[in-house]
């Protein structure tokens, strides 16, 4: 089915156009144009906006703001976002990274969405349709959202305790068996004072490992100290079985890889 493209100078006008049936927003197109190429007849008209509000990475006042149209390649090479290079470089190969946007990654279904996993661990907020909401709320409601995401923001300080790991079968580029991101805070005695752990491929979209997070607070990052968190990390997960891995396999290896991330 033939596609049509509509381009608007402002996010507001593009949002109005997206109210029509059969329309989808066009980010980098790596998922939505692929769907059209595959014959997804639900996509008739793609809508995009060239609004500058969607672009740019701004770091000021201890906050990082990344425009929704910023690509993975742009994040990966930003000198002040070095810890984020890892999840940004985890997305596809070089050409995909030059196209794939931060906004699009927030909508990517599992086994995709590696960068969104990082944003979830960072406690990012998502600005969409003129309102700003926590990323958890955004991810929960994303299927019914018709608003255009303009940016994501998070505290620069969170990057200091940030860790990320992606497991794939094909190296150096491959679709996730799983991905894990964590932001840990430490007390003066070396124990964990705060923990946010986000999991990719453990549900249809990125999720928090809330029970494991609680088990980690007060613990030391030793094999014994993290054992309760590893034992709890599978609580509430519902991984998919797909050509990359079975749900059983994903659940089996999750504690192993969380352990490596925490002790590494």
């Amino acid at each position, binding site marked *: 089915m033939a596609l049509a493209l509509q381009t608007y100078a402002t996010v507001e006008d593009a949002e109005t156009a997206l109210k029509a049936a059969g329309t989808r927003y*066009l980010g980098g197109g790596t998922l939505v144009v692929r769907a059209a190429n595959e014959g997804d007849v639900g996509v008739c008209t793609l809508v995009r906006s060239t609004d500058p509000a969607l672009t740019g990475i701004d770091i000021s006042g201890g906050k990082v703001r990344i425009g929704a149209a910023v690509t993975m390649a742009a994040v990966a090479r930003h000198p002040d976002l070095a810890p984020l290079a890892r999840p940004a470089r985890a997305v596809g190969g070089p*050409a*995909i990274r*030059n196209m794939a946007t931060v906004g699009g990654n927030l909508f990517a279904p599992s086994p995709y969405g590696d960068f969104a996993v990082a944003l979830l661990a960072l406690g990012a907020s998502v600005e969409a349709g003129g309102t700003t909401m926590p990323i958890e709320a955004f991810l929960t409601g994303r299927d019914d959202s018709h608003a255009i995401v303009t940016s994501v923001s998070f505290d620069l300080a969170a990057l200091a305790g940030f860790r990320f790991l992606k497991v794939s079968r094909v190296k150096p580029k491959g679709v996730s068996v799983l991905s894990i991101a964590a932001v840990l805070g430490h007390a003066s005695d070396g124990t964990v004072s705060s923990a946010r752990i986000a999991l990719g491929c453990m549900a249809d979209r990125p999720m928090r490992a809330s029970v494991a997070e609680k088990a980690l607070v007060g613990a030391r990052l030793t094999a014994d100290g993290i054992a309760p968190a590893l034992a709890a990390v599978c609580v509430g997960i519902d991984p998919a079985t797909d050509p990359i891995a079975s749900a059983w396999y994903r659940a089996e290896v999750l504690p192993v890889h969380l352990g490596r991330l925490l002790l590494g």
Partner: protein
Amino acid sequence: MAKVPIQFTLNGSEKAEFVESGATLLNALRDKVGDTSPKGGCHQGTCGACSVIIDGELRLSCLTLAETCSGAAIITTAGLAEGGVLHPLQRAFLDAFASQCGFCTPGMIMAAKALLDHTPDPSREDVVEALSGNICRCTGYEPIIQAVLTAARSNSQNVA
């Protein structure tokens, strides 16, 4: 479906065409402009055979809508040879038997060029990473990696 005008430069030459709104750059290049060097392998972003360089960045023409390239500078493998002399990457691919059926070759060369444009003296690891979005079903990759490393060396000798 409405046709829309687009203008861009292809390998340094101005091009102006009417394309269907929503046509991919791959289809526009092959069917309208007559540059068949980008290949349509999967149309899903997975094989890299359609790779081109748009405004200095490697992209997949099968997932790029032609209309979004208005005003862009596009480079394809068809434009690399100058005055009948092969580009160092083409020469190296030929010499190293890095091309068998040849279907992946234009995409591989674009990915390699995008690497060498930014990293003229790459490590083997850099080359593997740069080619990681491109699939070859014939060569087993090793001759391709060697060809890119050879082209990088011959480039630096030319500059020296």
